[in-house]
């Protein structure tokens, strides 16, 4: 399970202020903190307050600042292709692009970009018509992303399909569809594409958010989830992932398995 730490995002107040004041402290704090909490990638998002023309420069600064503080690759997260490319240029190691949808015009931008920078890429199982209701429609869109990646030589282990979970309080019926989508994505190609999920989305606006997040994460892991963008600053979440890894036979048991998981 690859955990992508969600915390370096301009939607959070401390990060937004860090960006506005060019203060690296909050960015580096969260880079280190998430590294200690087993993150495998740092999601980096400028947030909505930065003007589009400023986003590339801010993204470049965020990526450099975060990578100075922690030896982790970044998941460059933006809806602005120029910001993504600026982040990729500044990045050391193998980055991840967050994200393309299944709209052809977007795939034509981001997938060649992934190939050019040897980056992984997240593909959202949606298009300009929105998030599909059924698993079948999600899988159809995922297949379009698979084909486009193959055309550009992006290997399946670099493609992370996000079946898109909606908050439990507004889209309760999506949960089972997402789980079914995860199962089916694994049959789309051999080797199969990987999967990811914006986990915190499942509990947006709900009470007991951490509980909902953790529960859905474990259910999804059983259906084939390989990674998640999530709040890694949650000890219980890490413990549960460690236990799920064992039960899914992805990690070999030892009595100190909780500690071992964290000492990666």
């Amino acid at each position, binding site marked *: 399970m690859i955990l992508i730490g969600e915390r370096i995002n301009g939607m959070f107040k401390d990060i937004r202020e860090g960006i506005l004041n060019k203060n690296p402290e909050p960015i580096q704090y969260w880079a280190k903190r998430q590294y200690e909490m087993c993150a495998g990638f740092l999601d980096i998002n400028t947030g909505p307050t930065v003007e589009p023309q400023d986003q590339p420069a801010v993204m470049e600064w965020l990526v450099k600042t975060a990578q100075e503080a922690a030896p982790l690759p970044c998941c460059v997260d933006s809806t602005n292709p120029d910001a993504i490319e600026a982040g990729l240029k500044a990045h050391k190691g193998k980055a991840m692009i967050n994200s393309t949808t299944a709209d052809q015009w977007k795939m034509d931008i981001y997938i060649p970009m992934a190939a050019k920078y040897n980056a992984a890429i997240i593909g959202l199982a949606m298009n300009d018509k929105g998030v599909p209701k059924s698993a079948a429609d999600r899988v159809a869109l995922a297949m379009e992303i698979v084909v486009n990646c193959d055309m550009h030589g992006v290997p399946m282990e670099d493609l992370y399909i996000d079946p898109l979970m909606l908050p439990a309080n507004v889209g309760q019926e999506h949960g089972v569809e997402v789980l079914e989508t995860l199962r089916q994505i694994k049959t789309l190609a051999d080797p199969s594409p990987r999967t990811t999920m914006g986990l915190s989305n499942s509990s947006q606006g709900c009470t007991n958010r951490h509980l909902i997040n953790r529960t859905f994460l474990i259910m999804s892991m059983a259906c084939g989830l390989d990674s998640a963008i999530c709040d890694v600053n949650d000890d219980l979440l890490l413990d549960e992932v460690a236990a799920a890894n064992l039960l899914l036979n992805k990690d*070999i*048991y030892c009595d100190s398995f909780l500690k071992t998981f964290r000492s*990666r």
Partner: protein
Amino acid sequence: MAVTIAKEKWTSKVGEMELGAGPKAVKVGGETSLSFLHFEGEIPNRPVLALEVWDMEPTEWPDMVKKPFEGVLADPVAWAKKSVEYGADVVALRFMSAHPDFKNAAPEECAATAKAVAEAVDVPLIIVGCGVEEKDAAVLEKVAEALNGKQCLIGCATEKNYKTITAAAMVNGHSVIASSPLDINLAKQLNILMTEMNLPANRIVIDPLVGALGYGIEYGYSIMERARMGALMGDKMLAMPVICFVGQEAWKAKEAKSPDEESPEWGAQAKRAILWEVITSTSFALAGGSIFILRHPESLKHINAHFNKMMESNAY
């Protein structure tokens, strides 16, 4: 869609260990793929072969194993030299005399023998106790001290005696054999306990206590294979080279021990017994074994030839 050749991509590697000091030092481990799959990763080091030497005459060994060492079996120094002449990469010195059922030799006596052997041969040494956990801890403590700086591999450390043995290895610059009975979880846990004492992970080898062909070889095989896959997927506490005590197991098998007149239908013992040791070793090499402790020099010759061939690159 274009055809892509599927090759397994692993993210991690087996730790690399150096044994011995000087020109005859050997390296084991360091693989980034399953055994001998040169087309999927790096196999930087050839598995190494050791011949077993006892510090007392092994009266119960079958005549066939005693024959090549005629005249030196009561003298560990001469026996060790003979083993090097036969082409052993490493000498595995076993302190059987320390066993309470035999001579119950004192740790100091063992240390003196170890020193004499180390001075007589220039290949790395593996030092093994008599198998009584408490006694092994006492013996290895003294022997490790006597061999300070020789970068030996000492063991076998178990759940019961690992503390003394690990400490002795750390102080004197040796590596440790960690033994656990055919159980991957116990193996992992013992490695964790030993590294928590600050012994670097690349100074541990795993001894899964394998059995010979016909005597549960498949259990050892599957555990080694699983440990290797764990290692390649990033489990640092399983990313150690594996040692296989093949000689002691193969020569326990009746198929190896039984002389011609006893089982004529099985064919000549001279051929059959050697094959038993060879097949057991080469099978474990495929499962990921790195160090093999053998008893017969003829087996060593055959396994060497096999390893030389397997180390030729099959990359494409």
